[in-house]
């Protein structure tokens, strides 16, 4: 059994999503509060056999109880029980080629069932099967309880302890085929316990018993010789009374979160019953090497077509282990509502509309490469695709500088950089991020002529581009803008990186032996600047992360105000862009409610 489609309306942070998950691992990533865990909860509630969840007003999107919570999970690869014609009015068709669901299965479709959870303002959850034709004919039907238990997913939350005992929804219960025998053995044990208990007696309750007897007699209630005994009903097989213990009699419930999750996952694979697993924060409580172990156990590396795992993560370690097509980006953007055309008196003006997007990666080679090389960027809401290592170095330098000065760093604004790997690869990478819903900017130089169409196309995809003016390379922009007293430290960094000979050679080459390294370093004159800029560009003096980071951190940033506009204007605009991110709220705006 696999989840083919998830449709959620008005559930917590989700106004509306429609998503076709894949078989195998579906790892949801996205900025905080984007709705990742809510999707897991929705699947769990709609498919699960749990009935104790109590809905409250806060489960409604934006607390608006006038809009019903409506969760529809469509499942395929049905067992014979679910495929049975008894559910005939609800069988629907899933076309995997063009990912569509039709109300009746066409000949090449996969037969699917849609499970619906509907909550209205009475907060009473209603589980049912859904098909358009059944709804039209006002036919209502639910899955038989046994079948619901069969498809019920295993949820590994922050606490998996309940799986370490036989109880409702516990994995051990699913593994037990002969429950009746265990139950009778347990009942026998409970009776023995009661007998032993009544022999030994219970100290400290005699007082109470005496009082009960007195009061009862006074009231004429016939209770003679009241005694305190064990209540057998309190010891039931599925009530969690039997739990796993290790050889020192320590209950396995005391295992750490990570360990117990790992164990439960292993057990889950062993039973092979429920094929859907839900895990929040897959990395939770696990060391990196055990994360890999868990991912392995979950089937992240194999192409097992019979299982499906829904997980969320914030860990680059997890991401690096995954294939690109196992990733799904969840985002929620708050859009200001359009001003109402006609103001209706008494109507509460709608403040904003939440736009939820759930986009899965296709798993192309480019995506895979991007994921491997720029994992962290995938975990940030805004991404700056830098043309190369030099530009990344500049951004890192800037970030360090902000933090050193006690300001909020760029990363803290919800921003991370990605390596564009040069022109034209950087445009592809920017496009990938943009199509996944990320807020994307490009930082690039202008020494290579970029086709205008590409730039227009980028802008159409919502990508902001920041680049040096007038065909400057990054190195030439630096030398064109740096104040005079900074030329010497700039040259020092270049010499450390490239050796003095190389720098000297470049300067001589572009100046026709008019200037030398020594001259520029010790007796800098403004007329040397163009030659230095050209030499730096030709020699790619800072073409790596470390030198350009040092340049920014040690030289440019401390002298920002003195630097020329060639450098500071594009970078300034970029910083502005970073600060405008929806996730980058001004400090100290959080208020207690």
């Amino acid at each position, binding site marked *: 059994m696999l989840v083919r489609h998830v449709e959620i309306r008005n559930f917590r942070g989700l106004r509306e999503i429609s998503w076709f998950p894949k078989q195998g691992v579906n790892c949801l990533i996205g900025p905080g509060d984007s709705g990742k865990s809510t999707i897991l909860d929705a699947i769990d509630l709609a498919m699960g056999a749990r009935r104790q969840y109590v809905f409250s007003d806060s489960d409604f999107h934006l607390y608006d109880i006038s809009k019903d919570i409506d969760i529809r999970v469509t499942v395929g690869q*049905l*067992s*014979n029980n679910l*495929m*049975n*014609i*008894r559910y*005939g*009015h609800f*069988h629907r*068709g899933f076309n995997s080629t063009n990912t569509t669901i039709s*109300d*009746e*299965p*066409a*000949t*090449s*479709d*996969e*037969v699917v069932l849609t499970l619906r959870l509907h909550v209205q303002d009475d907060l009473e959850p209603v589980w049912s099967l859904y098909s358009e*034709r059944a709804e039209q004919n006002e036919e209502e039907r639910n899955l038989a309880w046994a079948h619901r238990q069969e498809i019920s997913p295993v949820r590994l939350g922050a606490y998996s302890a309940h799986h370490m005992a036989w109880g409702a929804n516990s994995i051990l219960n699913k593994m037990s085929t002969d429950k009746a025998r265990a139950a009778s053995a347990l009942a026998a044990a409970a009776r023995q316990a009661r007998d032993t208990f009544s022999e030994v007696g219970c100290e400290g309750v005699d007082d109470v018993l005496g009082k009960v007897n007195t009061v009862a007699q006074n009231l004429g209630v016939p209770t003679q010789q009241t005694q305190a005994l064990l209540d057998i009903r309190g010891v039931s097989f599925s009530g969690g009374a039997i739990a796993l213990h290790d050889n020192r009699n320590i209950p396995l419930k005391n295992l750490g979160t990570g360990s117990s999750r790992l164990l439960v996952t292993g057990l889950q694979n062993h039973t092979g019953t429920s094929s859907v697993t839900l895990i929040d924060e897959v990395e939770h409580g696990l060391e990196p090497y055990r994360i890999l172990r868990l991912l392995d156990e979950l089937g992240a590396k194999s192409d097992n077509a019979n299982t499906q795992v829904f997980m969320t993560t914030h860990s680059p370690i997890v991401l690096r282990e995954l294939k690109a097509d196992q990733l799904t980006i969840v985002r929620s953007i708050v859009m200001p509502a359009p001003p109402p055309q006609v103001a209706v008196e008494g109507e509460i003006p709608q403040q904003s509309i939440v736009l939820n997007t759930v986009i899965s990666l296709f798993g192309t080679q480019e995506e895979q490469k991007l994921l491997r090389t720029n994992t962290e960027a995938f975990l940030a809401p805004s991404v700056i695709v830098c043309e190369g290592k030099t530009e990344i170095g500049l951004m890192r330098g800037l970030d360090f500088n902000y933090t050193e000065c006690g300001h909020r760093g760029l990363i803290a604004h919800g921003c991370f950089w990605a390596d564009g790997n040069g022109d034209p690869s950087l445009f592809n990478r920017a496009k990938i991020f943009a199509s996944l819903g990320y807020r994307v900017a490009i930082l690039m130089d202008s020494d290579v002529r970029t086709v205008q169409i590409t730039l227009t196309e980028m802008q159409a995809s919502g990508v902001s581009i920041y680049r040096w003016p007038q065909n400057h390379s990054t190195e030439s922009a630096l030398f064109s803008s740096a104040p005079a007293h900074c030329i010497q430290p700039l040259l020092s960094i270049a010499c450390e990186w490239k050796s003095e000979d190389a720098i000297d050679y470049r300067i001589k080459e572009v100046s026709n032996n008019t200037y030398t390294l020594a001259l520029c370093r010790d007796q800098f004159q403004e007329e040397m600047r163009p030659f230095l800029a050209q030499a730096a560009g030709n020699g790619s003096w800072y073409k790596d992360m470390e030198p350009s980071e040092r340049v920014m951190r040690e030289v440019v940033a401390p002298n920002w105000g003195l630097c020329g506009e060639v450098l500071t204007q594009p970078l300034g605009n970029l910083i502005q862009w970073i600060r405008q991110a929806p996730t980058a709220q001004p400090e100290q705006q959080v208020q207690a409610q």
Partner: protein
Amino acid sequence: MSDVGTVLSAQRGVVEAPAGCGKTQLIVDVLTEPSELPILVLTHTSAGVAALRNRLLARGVPTNRYKVATIDSWVMHAIGCYPQCAGYVVDPENINYIATREAAIRLCNNGAINSILRASYGRLLVDEYQDCSVSQHALITALSNVLPTIVFGDPLQAVFGFGRDLLPHWQNEVLGYFPHLGTLNIPWRWNNVGAGELGAWLLQVRQLLLAGQSIDLRTCPNFVEWVPTPNNPAELIQTQVNAQFAISRQFPDDKVLIIGDSINPDTRHTYASRARGVNVVETVELKDTIQHIRCMIGQAGVPLLVAIVNFLKGVMANVNGDRLLTRTQSILNGRNRTPPTFQESAAVRICQNGGYPEALAFLEAMSQDRDRRVYRDVPFRMVVDAMNRVSADPNLNLVEVFISMREQRRHSGRVVFGRSIGSTLLLKGLEADHTIILDADNPARKRGMNANHLYVALTRGAKSVKVFSRSPILPGY
């Protein structure tokens, strides 16, 4: 020889099953075998479904091993589930059965629906296959591409097959598609009651009839008795009633089936009105009763009385309806010399603008009259019950109430007690200890029995068969 193993291992096939040779038992045995998926069993009539279901319940076969339905009800359910794939929306007011079967064939050709069917049923068994029409045969062959399909039937017991939808040719079309798995050949019905000789004789007769040859009724003297048909019609019916009474005197607890004219129910009713203690096996439709009920609806006073008397004439002996109506008029006009009887008073109360309550009292009074006798209990009881319900709730419509009762009866299956008269069509599938065939060689083309009717008639009785005919040798057909 066909056994459970043969049926369960075959992908497709026919089991030919002469009457009384353990066909139903074989089906029950097949369903008793543990299987991963339930087996779908289809038959023709609701009565057949009820009979099989009761047999399975009695045997204690777990209900999750099988699903029994009529072909048409299963078709309606299936196309109701997937109307778009079937390309047909059922209009319950006007069901075109041939179209529904074509729609179901479209479902069988849908790959996704195939997987649903295969997940729902492990195998398909079809009972009474000789009664399958061409369109039903087409449907079953389509289903046999999805599910392993075994059909059971006996071409010699095909007595249905009327209207536009003809029967497929058994030899060419049925056996041409379904391989012949075997023919059941142990006459259990007769062996079990010590009448093995009769059972063996019937198997011989079957071969003769299949070959179109004549049969001699004198060749099984211990069990089959030929009675020459008297020439005088009045004498005929008296002789027949006497013969029946003779059997009942000798075996007071045995079941007797009397097989009358297939076409004309009135002759059977006449027989019942003459032979005390004989029940009439009624048709499912009860067409004549419905017609009478239509005359009663919305009526009161004299027209209601007339309608009720007309109804009673067909279900009760000695109604003397015309005299009763004249007497009622005289009483109303105060011209009667003798005091009104209990029944006449009840009739008078209907005429005084009486409605259903008065009608019910009249019916009750009539049924208590010692000179009169209800010989068609089923329609009489049903009319009384329907009228009772409408009296209690005037919003109900008498015809609708009656029809819903009729449908209920259709699904509850047939049970025949004691001595009953019917036709081969009505008695097919039922069995008794003794059979009396009232007219085996009527020369009128429409009223004569053909080989199939004769075989069905001869095989109803397990202990004895009495045949009225002009000649002891019945011609080949």
